[in-house]
């Protein structure tokens, strides 16, 4: 497989870095090498935040974004501040309620009820995990089982059940929409 650039974007506190770390683990289980980086600012209580995942066959390849193949935007800030980096033909997944003006362009764009499904799974804070599930189903790049195992490894014990539920809800949502 060739190089793939994925960004999770939104605001501090939405679990963007945790989300990318889970995806990193899931892809690792599928035998793919990845590099993960993130915005490095004090944004734990809001403000634009992102986390990037670069998949490449060559482990020494450039580990930062050059043009996004996938943008997962959890709110308007994340969508606005990342729009210029999205490549034509890229997949753009965004929350249908928190992103009112999605990036304009020739994208494969999908408005999804990420927050609504997260609330059903237990907490709005699981919107990041719902998004991962939806992405996995729609892209076919990562199996649900790998995502589930990554969630077990990377989230605190008390959130594992809720996050697994969120991932499965997202996966079902992705299947319906693809």
């Amino acid at each position: 497989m060739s190089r793939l650039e994925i960004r999770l974007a939104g605001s501090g506190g939405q679990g963007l870095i945790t989300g990318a770390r889970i995806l990193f683990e899931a892809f690792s289980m599928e035998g793919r090498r990845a590099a993960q980086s993130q915005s490095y600012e004090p944004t734990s209580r809001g403000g634009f935040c992102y986390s990037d995942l670069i998949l490449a066959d060559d482990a020494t390849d450039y580990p930062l974004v050059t043009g996004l193949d996938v943008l997962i935007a959890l709110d308007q800030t994340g969508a606005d501040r990342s729009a210029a980096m999205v490549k034509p033909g890229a997949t753009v997944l965004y929350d249908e309620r928190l992103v009112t003006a999605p990036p304009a362009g020739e994208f494969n764009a999908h408005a999804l009820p990420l927050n609504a499904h997260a609330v059903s799974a237990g907490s709005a804070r699981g919107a990041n995990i719902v998004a991962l599930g939806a992405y996995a189903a729609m892209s076919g790049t990562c199996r649900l089982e790998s995502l589930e195992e990554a969630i077990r490894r990377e989230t605190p014990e008390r959130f594992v059940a809720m996050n697994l539920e969120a991932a499965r809800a997202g996966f079902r949502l992705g299947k319906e929409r693809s």
Partner: protein
Amino acid sequence: MTTELQPLHGNQACALAAVAAGCRFFAGYPITPSSEIAEHMSHELPRVGGVFVQMEDEIGSLAACIGASFGGAKAMTATSGPGFSLMQENLGYAAMTETPCVIVNVMRGGPSTGMPTRPAQGDLMQARWGTHGDHPIIVLTPASVQEIYTETTRAFALSERFRVPVVVLYDQVVAQLLESIEVPPAEQSVAADRPWAAAGNGFQPYAETESLVPPMVRPGEGLRVHTTGLTHAPTGFPTQAPPVADRALKRLLEKIEKHRDVIDKSDAYRCEDAEIVIVACGITARAARRAVATLREEGVKAGLFRPLTMWPFPERAFRAATANARRVLVPELNAGQLILEVERLTAGRRPVAGLNRVDGEPLAPRQISDRVKELARHD
């Protein structure tokens, strides 16, 4: 040989590699973007019977490392630009007293407190010439999490073997990056101790030896040693006698030159037939590597020369890599530092151009490939 793939952040890899190399003493003052090194050392060292000290500042941090090293321990400190500036006096003392120690400098935007969370490569020359006087030093520049691990273990091996301070120099991007790396088996990472002195009549702690590296006194074993930053004779006592002072300094410098075959390390990527060779380190080298791959697809004969040992600069390998080049391009995250060494070695034989960025953002592959194409139009 078995290796396991492990996801690690750059700074985490640095700390784990240090412990694997045998580091048992860390003194530091946490500073962005190096703080995770201190954090991980504070977890790891007590588990292996080592000592972690959070110091009052960076002057004390390196001073404590020098003391620990003279006490027999492999010692390390970690910092960023502002702290590295404070360490310069003791860095010279370590060089002069031939005290093994490893100093990690995770570069951020400067000068002064600059841009704490932004990458930069503005300390390349400071790492070579930051402390006063002619002095020996080794500086290593890893470009990935994997290389942070291997170069940190190499830093201990070189520092111990040649009794010289070794600086591991990388940028904020690589420091905070998460990558899966191959962690070598523990026995491969352990750095051999410095040469130890044996008791005997007429012992001189700074005697001239075949390797030019005098064996070090193991504390508490009966040998007496006088240690000073003043220019000293083989006895260890101060001298200003011209022939003795001359030999004392020249031996310090020659012990590095004599072992260049072990110290030099670099990587040449597609340089054999390259018409334009890019010289870069750290995150910039990874952008350059991508640029080279793209340019080659477009039919442009580009190559990349990457020093892993920045100082002393791997001159011989550089000359070989650029032998057939028409031009050299030096992209770097500063106003032009590495280019000075490249120009010195190129000596006007072919044009050398720079590409510089000092706004706190890394150079993108596209910027480098565009600059190469722009230069190629002149040929």
